[in-house]
């Protein structure tokens, strides 16, 4: 996983920032179906959380808003380390460049979502907008949340 993340980061850094979001990540060993296909029911639940909480900023197509809100399509954060990804949802995020591009808005904390809701929405994100990588389980969110609190 670490290697995959490093590879993705390198890829993201090498590509021209503006094109980064459109550039397809080569189908390397992305853990596509390591955990099996994601069920339609989980995707529907994840989508509902997305529409309620994330859509305004990241948009229905997950491509974000120029200069303001980053895309959720093939970014190193979405495809990368799950703990880092879950922590963004728990803590929010501001002032970080995303794959070389700055964004001016901020992301609030969504720590009030349940472990299951966070797992579902991230599973939905990681299987949508051109992403195709492993699901996030509620148990994983629980562990990451506990570590995040320390």
């Amino acid at each position, binding site marked *: 996983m670490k290697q995959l993340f490093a590879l993705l980061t390198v890829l993201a850094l090498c590509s021209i920032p503006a094109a980064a979001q459109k550039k397809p990540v080569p189908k390397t060993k992305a853990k596509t179906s390591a955990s099996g296909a994601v069920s339609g029911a989980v995707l529907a639940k994840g989508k509902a959380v997305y529409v309620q909480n994330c859509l305004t900023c990241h948009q229905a*197509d997950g491509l974000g808003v120029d200069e303001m809100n980053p895309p959720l399509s093939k970014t190193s954060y979405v495809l990368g380390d799950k703990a880092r990804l879950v922590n963004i949802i728990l803590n929010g995020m*501001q002032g970080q460049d995303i794959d070389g591009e700055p964004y001016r808005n901020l992301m609030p904390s969504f720590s009030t979502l349940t472990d299951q809701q966070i797992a579902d929405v991230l599973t939905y994100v990681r299987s949508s907008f051109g992403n195709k990588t492993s699901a996030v389980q509620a148990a994983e969110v629980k562990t990451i949340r506990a570590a995040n609190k320390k």
Partner: protein
Amino acid sequence: MNRSVTRYLLLAPALVGSLSLLALRSETIVAADPDNAGLKLPAGFGALKVAETGGRARHLTVTPQGNIYVKLNRPNADGKGILMLRPSSGGKAEVAGSLGNYGGTGIYSTKDYLYASSDEAVFRYKLNAQGEVESPAQPEKIVTGLINRKQHESKSITLDREGNLYVNIGAYSNTCQEQDRQKGSKGKPHCPILDSAGGIWQFRTDKLNQSYGQGVRYATGLRNVVGLDWNTQANQLFVMQHGRDQLYDNFPALYNSKQSAELPAECLYALKKGDNAGWPYLYYDPQQKKKMLNPEYGGDGKKEATGNYIDPAAAYPAHTAPNALLFYTGTMFPEKYRNGAFIAFHGSWNRAPEPQKGYYVVFQPFKNGKPSGPWEVFADNFAGSAAAAAAGRPEHKPCGLAQGPDGSLYVSDDRKGTIYRIVYNKK
């Protein structure tokens, strides 16, 4: 200016071949593009693409000699944040130089000076008789140390005719919540942001290194103003505010997503020194035509705000992001446009999941220095198609406005960096 020699040719596609040669012959002939640069305009108007800058072209200004200065949001590959374009043929222009090692939004020129802002400071450069900057590496830093916390960072600028500079300092927040943009989070009492942001500050144009201590908080309670201009008829500053976001996201029990897409209006304010427009305590509801208490401060969509806050001078569709305001004083356009306001709407994102809106330039008629009558869309289709606009995936986003010496209206686009010029076919 050889105004009498200047001719505006609005070419019907069939005539292009025969007339384009003619257009090349003289510098003063302004030839509209056969497709009017892809824009939809009222009858008699035409448009051309003056230049493709490839940068995020925020605001722009045109000197009496017709030189165009464009402020880029970020420095280009040469590390420069201001482009200088010289007129070439057919009404177009070519990049002839660049200066300033900072990104930003604001740019403004008088006959003698070019003013430009980064997201923290304002600089000025002496212009020579040819409208050129002679010492690009030695600007005077007239304002410094303005707050920039990324959100609402643009330090848009304008001047009055008495040596004062007006600078927007946007609030680095949506509604001054304890936790910015977080669901249900309450507004901070006596919003502390207003001490150093969320308003318009006034400085002198000719003093160096001014900051908060030397400036005047001219007007407060303005969330973020990107478009502002001085109205010489009313001798008054007018500004366009970007209204608050996310009523539904943060207060789903009080607003549905349809209401959230239509609330609040984007507002035009006529300001006097000391005015307070009420952010973050209120928003303007264009249907009820009332100032409503924000839910962060106990509002529920029905309670009106109380307090000494000014009313808007005019209201426009929610979240459409007015990024430039220009009072038209030229004589090229028909009489009805004289002293009226053009407003560039950058386009929305906060209307989702409802269709997005904006990506056009609006005309607001004025009479005796006050808005008079309904506004209309003047230049449309920067997005490229209605579908692209609705999806919030426009090709171009109008961001800056400037008037040329002949009365042409220039529009900058901060998505692709296209510079447009709109002309009228006067006989």
